[in-house]
């Protein structure tokens, strides 16, 4: 099992600083969720971990500096799934999943029998093998997300870096995908780092959370320590109530503004 850590990671995009010395770590087999409002730097942190943006500071994979890894070595260890993956519409599911074997192929190599077997195993694991010949354009949202995960898994990675893996899914498919990721973590010992927009869901699945705001870590630790009403209200500028769920995980319920004088108090309304 592979541990992953960021230490003092700063990123500047188009001359604008996006991350300021962010540190966080996840032990091998753990699930770390990155939280924060839009623009807090969650996606940028995950992309820095994947080596896709320039950063200062260090990212370590099992105590080794990620910069020392060659691009293909890094890609074999860390599988990255962006928030909106590009799905060439006419490619079949099988062809697409096989692209996940790229990190294992030397420059002039072509995928061999072993690569096809690993791709098929990933497709079976995510229950998409039965429509391997279907074009990507013909997939539903839930199928698409499983196919993208199958491509990530086909590389036999040690760490899954998932940027908003469920943002396009309804609540049922969201649960289905997150349960699948959790199963993969338990069965294959995968380490998971994901951004998640739903705070309750993040507390249910991840075992540690990092709350980012404006490129800085505001809070880090277990769901119970990070998901508190004062923290969420200050970072998100939201009104919430935190309820203890049946299983002990915090449930974050948004609270609507109280009525005043029979009218809802919208920002534009003057009382």
């Amino acid at each position: 099992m592979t541990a992953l850590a960021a230490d003092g990671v700063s990123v500047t995009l188009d001359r604008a600083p996006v991350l300021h010395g962010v540190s966080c770590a996840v032990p091998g087999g753990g699930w770390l969720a990155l939280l924060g409002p839009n623009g807090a730097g969650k996606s940028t942190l995950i992309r820095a971990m994947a080596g896709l943006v320039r950063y200062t500071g260090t990212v370590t994979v099992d105590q080794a500096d990620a910069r020392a890894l060659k691009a293909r070595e890094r890609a074999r260890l860390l599988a990255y799934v962006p928030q909106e993956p590009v799905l060439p519409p006419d490619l079949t599911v099988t062809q697409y999943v096989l692209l996940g074997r790229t990190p294992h192929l030397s420059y002039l190599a072509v995928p061999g029998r072993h690569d096809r077997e690993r791709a098929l195993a990933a497709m079976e694991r995510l229950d998409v093998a039965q429509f391997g010949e279907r074009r990507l354009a013909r997939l539903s949202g839930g199928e698409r997300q499983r196919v993208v995960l199958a491509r990530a898994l086909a590389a036999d990675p040690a760490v899954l870096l998932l940027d908003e893996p469920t943002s396009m899914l309804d609540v049922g498919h969201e649960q289905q995908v997150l349960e699948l990721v959790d199963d993969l973590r338990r069965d294959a010992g995968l380490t998971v780092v994901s951004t998640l927009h739903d705070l309750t869901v993040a507390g249910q699945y991840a075992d540690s959370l990092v709350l980012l705001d404006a490129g800085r870590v505001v809070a880090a630790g277990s769901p119970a320590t990070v998901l508190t009403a004062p923290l969420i209200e200050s970072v998100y500028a939201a009104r919430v109530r935190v309820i203890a769920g049946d299983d002990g995980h915090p449930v974050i319920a948004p609270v609507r503004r109280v009525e005043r004088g029979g009218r809802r108090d919208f920002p534009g309304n003057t009382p």
Partner: protein
Amino acid sequence: MGGSGRVRKMSALGAAAAFLVVAALVAAFVGAADLNPLATAAALIDKALPFLRLPSSLSSVDRAVLFQIRLPRVVLGALVGGLLALAGAGYQGVFRNPLVDSGMLGASAGAGLGATLAIVYLGGAGPQAVPVAAFAGSLAGVAVAYGTGAAAARHSVLGDGVATLLLAGVAVGSFLISVQTFVLQRSAPDIGAVYSWLLGSLSAASWQQVTTILPYAAVSSVVILLHGRHLDVLAVGDEEARALGQRPDLVRGIVVAACALAAASAVAVSGIIGFVGIVIPHVARRLAGPSYTSVLPLSLLGGAAFLVLADTLARTVLSPAELPIGVVTALVGAPAFVWVLRGTSHVST
């Protein structure tokens, strides 16, 4: 690729190879000189299989027509067509855009300017000057467009280096064409010669031309064909390609250089022939799916067969006069392209 995908690819490749053989035979049998088909076949088999000695009733003049005029033209046409279609397919993969042609990125405009300069200013330098100038102009056009585009992409607001490169190609192309127009406008007597070159022709085909471009054709084709898998990876975008351990800029540079070399070799001996680089890869995609591991070899074979047939039409329709082959490919290619587009549910970029 799944089992059925590979069967589809292999049957499409087999069909394209058979199509090429048939096209080459038709081209060898048809022409201004009326050769006896049976005697021609016998002479061809005799030449192709040295251990077999077949008597042929072909006269020595007919033999010369077959082996020194028709065959080099068939082989050259196949080479040019294959190179143009392969380069078009390669560019389409690199730029993730099925409407890019082999003449993009300043290639055709550079070749046109090179040939124009050679015709206008080096008229006395002999017939070799024009192909060399077209070859150099085509490569220089791509180099300038690619260099400009790559430099601009660093400061671009378009975010994607691909769009910047294509726009740089359009700008450089327009600039080169305006220079060419200026040169041409100042030397009216050469307009006829320049236009007949621009419209494309294989009428000067010789074995010497074949052997001249063969090394460039071989090197560029092998390099492009080896990158089918990489072009498939590029289809998911630069960022995901990098996450998969690929270096998109390196792949793009290598494939663009090979495509530029392929297109420049073709243009040097044929002039500017349009549509092959768009239509043939499109048909290949319809036949065998979007994976470049099949689109590239299919384009090579299909482009070769298509141009051999187009050239046969070009030299027989108005026989003994000839149509410019660029006119034939556009006349046949444009309607075929519209037909292919009609059957495409969407354009995959």
